[in-house]
Structures are given as C-alpha cells and as structure tokens.
C-alpha cells in the first residue's frame, strides 16, 4: 500500500528568497518571461529521463518551490548540449539556469548520493590546481577509486583497450607556471568568499 502524500501547496511553502535568487542568476535574466511552451523539454535529448522537465523546473524555480527544484534529478541530467538555450523562444539561457541550480544544490548538499559529481569536481580541481592540465587516465582512475570500484571493473576492458592504443596515459601532463595558476584559482576563491 503506497503512502498518501499531500501534493497541494500553501503560499507559505514558497521560498521567496530562492525565487529572487534564480531571477538574478547569469543567463536567467528573462526567466520571468517564460511562457511555458516546453520547447526546452522537447528539444532536450535527456528529458526522456527527467522527473521534472526543464520547463517545469523553470516555473517551480521562479515560483520558489526550492525543495522540488533542488531535489529534482533532472538538473543532474543536463549534458551541456545547449539545445534549450538555442531554441528557447524567449531567449532564456536554460543551460546556464541548470548549471546555477546544480551549484546551488551542491552548496546545500542536496544532490543524489549516487552521483560522484562533487568528487569529480574535487578531483578535477586538485589536478588542475596541481598541474594545470588534466591527465584523463589519472582523473578517471582516481574518480573510480573514490566512487565505486565495481563500475571501474566493469570498464576494465575499455581501460585495457585505451592502454593498448596508447590513449590511456598515466604520465602527468603539466604546465610550467603552476605557481601563477595557483594564485589565479585562489584569487577566484577569495573573490567568491567576498561575494558570499
């Protein structure tokens, strides 16, 4: 017997701060002009898997239904193909909105636990911070180590194939001016803290 859940919303359920925040997001300047035509969803190659389609997310977000938005799996499905951004008849940069929602969800720790996204981000950052470049082999390797080995094992054949064809190098790619790069990334960090 399935649990009965209240679906109806009270005005008090709206998070006005969130609604305000989303309209201020880079790329979301025109989010209030959305006419809910669904072009973004229809053109999205991932919407077939989405619990909330991009169109619904946009409306939920501008109305301030934060839980629904940040709890939605859809925001993690965006593959950055920019179809929605290009097709939107109101020129809302939907991809950027999706990015912003991802970032907000990570900040608030509201991401599906099965997703290694924060780990990926961390590993990626470590590697760039340290060497300025990504050695794909190592990144994937570290990533799988830190998430689940099983998946990694499932991929061994691919790994071997890449090794065989010399596409899976463990040799560290690196830049000369690492110190400067470090300074650059720190500057971004601090500027963010100022903003926050």
């Amino acid at each position, binding site marked *: 017997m399935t649990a009965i859940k209240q679906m109806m919303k009270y005005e008090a359920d709206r998070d006005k701060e969130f609604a305000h925040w989303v309209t201020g997001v880079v790329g979301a300047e025109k989010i209030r002009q959305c006419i809910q035509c*669904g072009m973004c969803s229809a053109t999205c190659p991932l919407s077939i898997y989405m619990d909330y389609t991009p169109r619904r997310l946009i409306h939920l977000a501008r109305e301030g239904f934060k839980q629904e938005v940040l709890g939605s799996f859809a925001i993690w499905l965006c593959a950055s193909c920019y179809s929605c951004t290009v097709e939107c008849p109101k020129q809302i940069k939907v991809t950027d909105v999706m990015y912003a929602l991802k970032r907000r969800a990570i900040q608030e720790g509201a991401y599906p636990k099965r997703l290694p996204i924060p780990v990926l981000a961390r590993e990626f950052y470590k590697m760039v911070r340290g060497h300025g470049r990504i050695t794909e082999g190592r990144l994937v390797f570290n990533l799988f180590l830190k998430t689940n080995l099983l998946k990694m094992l499932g991929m061994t054949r691919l790994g071997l194939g890449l090794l065989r064809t010399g596409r899976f190098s463990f040799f560290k790619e690196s830049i000369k001016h690492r110190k400067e790069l470090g300074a650059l990334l720190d500057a971004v960090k601090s500027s963010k803290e100022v903003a926050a």
Partner: protein
Amino acid sequence: MRLESENPLTLSNNGSSRIGFYVCHCGTNIAGVVDVQALAEYAAKLPGVVVSREYKYMCSDPGQELIQQDIKGNRLNRIVVASCSPHLHEQTFRTATAKGGLNPFYFHMVNIREHVSWVHEDRTRATQKAKALVRAAIQRVSFHKPLERKRVPIHPDVLILGGGIAGIHAALTMADAGKHVYLVERDPTIGGHMAKFDKTFPTLDCAACILTPKMSMVRAHPNITLWTYSEVTHVEGYVGNFKVKVKRKPRYIHEELCTGCLACVDACVYKDARYPDEFNLGLGKRKPIYIPFAQATPLVVLIDPETCIQFKSGKCKKTCVEACAERRAIDFEQREETKEIEVGTIILSTGFQVFDAKRIPNYGYGIYPNVYTALEIERLINASGPTAGEVVLRDGRKPQTVGIIHCVGSRDENTNRWCSRVCCMYSLKLAHLLKEHTGAEVYNFYIDIRTPGKGFEEFYDRLLKEGVHFIRGRVAEVTDWAMTPDEEGKLVIRAEDTLAGFVRRVPVDLVVLSVGLEGHADAEDVRRTFNITCSTEGFFLERHPKLAPVDTFTDGIFLAGCCQGPKDIPDTVAQAGAAAAQCMALIDRGYMEIEPNTAWIEEELCSGCHVCIAMCPYTAIHFDAQKKVAVLNEALCKGCGTCVAACPSGAAQQNLFRDEQLFAEVEGVLV
C-alpha cells in the same frame, strides 16, 4: 548676434501677456509621478501667469469649460496646458481656447505624460523636469501670434492600394456613396489571400461564395477604376491633392478586348500546363498564357514572358493569336505604361505575407515533402484547388494522421515576436476540415489557444467534441528519424505535452505548419513612397492605437486590413469600412484645415543671398529680381522650416516656430 539686443525673458513679461496655466492629473497617470500641486504653485509665480490650476482631467468637458471661463473671467490672452502629447489633445485645447474667444494659436501644450510621468520614476526629478518644460512653454507662449488655419480643398477621388478583401470592401463602400475610386492591385487579379481560402472561421461559410460576388461588383461598378497588375511608383502632394503615378505592367493582352473566353489558353502550343502556378502556391500547374483562377477579376488572361516560347525564342506558332484572330486581344509588343492620377485621399490595404517556414529548418519544410504550410492546405482542401478538394500526400496516399503545428514564426524572439492572432482559429478550422475530408486523426500542437472573437470559443468547443487532440507544447522538431516500428516511414513530431509533464513523439503522415503573418518584404518601400511610418514589427503604424486606428501620421492617408497588423476577416472588413468613412468625411466636407506653420520672408531683412531658395524642397521660394529679395509662395510651403534655419539675416521666419518662440523655449527649459 540676432538676439543679443532682445532677451526673450525681458520680452516675455512686458506686461502684455495674461497667461492661464493648467496642469492635468490624467487620473494618476501624471499625478502619480509628478507633484502637480507643486507644479501649479511654481507656474503661478512665473512672469505673466494670471491663473494657475490643476485639474483631474483637463480634456474632459469641465476641464475645457475651466479654460473658457478663465479666458472671459480673467481676461486671459495666452493658454498653456501641461498634460499628454500634443499629438493626442492639441486640437482639443485649441478648440477650447477658440471657444473662449481667443485665437486658438495663443495656446501651447506641454507633454508631461508621455515625456515625463510615464518614463521617469523619481518623483522629485520628474517634477523638476516638468517645471522646466512648463517654464519653457510659458516663456514661449508670450511670443505667439494670432494665426488663421489654411484651408485646402479635398479632391473627391480616392486611391485604394491593394485589392484584397479590405480594399474591395472600402472601394465598394465609397463607390456606392458616389465617390470615384481607383483600386490598384499588384497581382493580375483582385481577391488577395481570402480568394485562396476554402472556408472561413468560425461559421465555415465558403470564402469564394462570399468574396467573388463582391469581386465582380468591383469589376462592374461605374465608380470604380480597377487597375490590376499595377503598382504605385510615385506619390507627391498632400492631403486633398495627391498626384500619383501608377505603373501598369504589360499582360500582353488588351484588357478591353479580352472576353475571358480562354480559347487562347486552350490553343497554346503547350498542350498541358507545366509551370508551377502562383495562385496555387506551386501545388498546381499553368500554361505560359493563363488566368490565375476561375473567378479571377478581371477575367482577363495574361502571358508570362519567362515561360512563353514567343518571348524566349521568338519562334512560336502563336496558336494563341490564331485562336483570338477575331478580337486580336493578344499583343506581344505591349509595353508597360504609366498613368498619372489626382486624388484627395488614399487608403492603403496592402495586406500581409505569410512567414517563410524555411526559416525554421527543424520543422522540415522544404526538406520533407509532406510538410505543408496552412495556406497550401487551404488550396488542397479547396474544391477548386489543384486536387479538386482531394487531400492527398505528395505520393498520392490519403493521410491517416495529421499534426498541426501552431505558432510557426509567431511568439518567438528568434523569428517574429508577436502573436499572429488568426492562426489559432484557422488551425482549428483546418483541423475540422481535414478530419471531415480524410477522417484522419488530427493533433494540434499549441502554446495557448486564443479564441476571443464572436463564436470562436464555441467553435473550439465543437472541435473538442469532434475528438481532435490538443497537445499543449511548442514543437521542437519534425523528423523522419524513427525510434519505434510504428514511427517507420512517418514524420515524427516531438513536443512536450506540458499538461501531462513529459515529452511525446507523435508519428504523423501530414504536417501542417500554422505560419504567422508579417508585413510585406517591401512594406518599407511602400512606406517611403507614401511618407508614412512602420511599427517595429514592419506593419504600417496607425496614428493612435485607440483613438485613430485607421489614420496615419500623414493627413489624408488611411490604413485598412493586415498591413496595419494581423487581423481576421471580420475585423478587416470593419476597419476597411472605417477607413472609407474617414475618406468620405474629408471629401464631403470638401476641405481640410492644415497647420498654419508655413514660412514667410521679411522683405526689409532679406539680403537676397539666395540661400533659402536652394534649401526649399518644394521650390516654394523664388527670387524677385526687381526687389532683389526672396519671395515665398505660401501655397507651396509645407512648413519644415529648413529655410528659416538657413537664413543668415533672420529674414525667413516660420509661423508657430518663430525664432523668438524657440529661443525662449530653449532658455526656458534651461533656466
């Protein structure tokens, strides 16, 4: 150096002027942003101001009364009203001033609504700006002089450009009232888009049945000169007296000799039609010698030199000429000719063009053969169309499923921003007709269904009853890429079913694109020829959206139909009637009063330098050899003031815009 001696400020309060000042609240439109109280108090202290009042609605009768009473009661000799744009109410207040017994040109208007309260938010700064403008007007008005309005006679003939339903209705209305109308149409026949339609919404009466009788009435009417296959190339003059050049393109047929027997067409060396015919949007074929369609008006054939052998090689048997031996209507030597006419008023009813569906490649128009535009479908379901009303796909199959895509080239920042207003209803109409003709399953993909007209919502309800599918979502693409067996060989439409909340793929046989309406590609040229204005969208701009919907900013030129913006047939006919009435109002009065803003030349100041003569675009100024001064012919002057600005000695002056008036105004906005 001119004004060194006479400073306007000192002139303006030489005691002679007794100014009445009035500021309008316009409800809260002005009072909501501008401190009208403060403004009135401020004006009261300005030199020459005798009365200073604020009132809720100055344009209302009591408002105008106020002015009239004060003129009498306080012996006012100047009036200044601060309210909306002079383009809206200048006449109103001039009339009030005149009723009060003053010359109407002792009045001046300040625009503190469109130019202040509606565009500024900061109350203090808005009020400050309003004060500056008011001060300017009060300084200016002291220099106003009494003027007489010039009367120009209105030539009783009318030119109507565009022979669609709008032009036809306007022409008949005026012709029946005894006015002589020149109806000029670019195509070989009148009828416009309506002639292409099958049925009309929401009543479903057949377009031809209601249109063609009117078309033949136009042809037969003694008061209508019908020039088809013709274009206006040049317009000069002004309200009441326009001189118009009309280019008549050669049909290679003598219109007056042709009886429309079509013997020549049958006789053409091409036994069967082989060239895409324009009227059927290329869905049908025609011969090089043809009539656009059976009820074409006038029923006169024409020859297309692009495809006629005689024109291409000069070596044709000319069987058509033989067939017309008796009447000798065919003339390969016919040349383009130009007619010159004089008219007093003009109606533009040039209509619209449909959005080019190729601009949205995702919908596959021009890529997949079974994607049609709505207009093409009108021809396909039309009994007199290329398939005699048979709705068949290009491969001859009957469609079992049809997808109608709304808002193609409408409500889209990437193409056209506006709602084309008729697409919802014509899509519903086509849905009904297609179901009726083919029994097909019909899907409408829409963003919003807009049915505000009389009987429209009822029609929508009828379609719902008929079981037509309505999927709320803008279509992303039409593709032949199949995901499932039942999609094989079909066109797949992908859209979000926004009411269900998920994306759907719907396989169909036939896709109909409900293309939007837009201004003609050459609307810009027409606009220039007639010296009127276009809106941002590329439709002709009406003088006022509510109070002057068929007027333009050029006196004597009116608008009717879709050239002013998308509209359906009822609205078009109504507007055409309104435009006709406007013309006749002018014609029957016989004259029009025009702004007395003409220039003149002070003989004693003129040094005879000729500068102004070169300046005048209307050759209104000539040189008097005896007196050695420039002389201005007021009848020819249109009042641009260019000569005044050019005159080095200040001899040239312009009524309503005299130097001292403008200098005083400039100083006023700045002090």
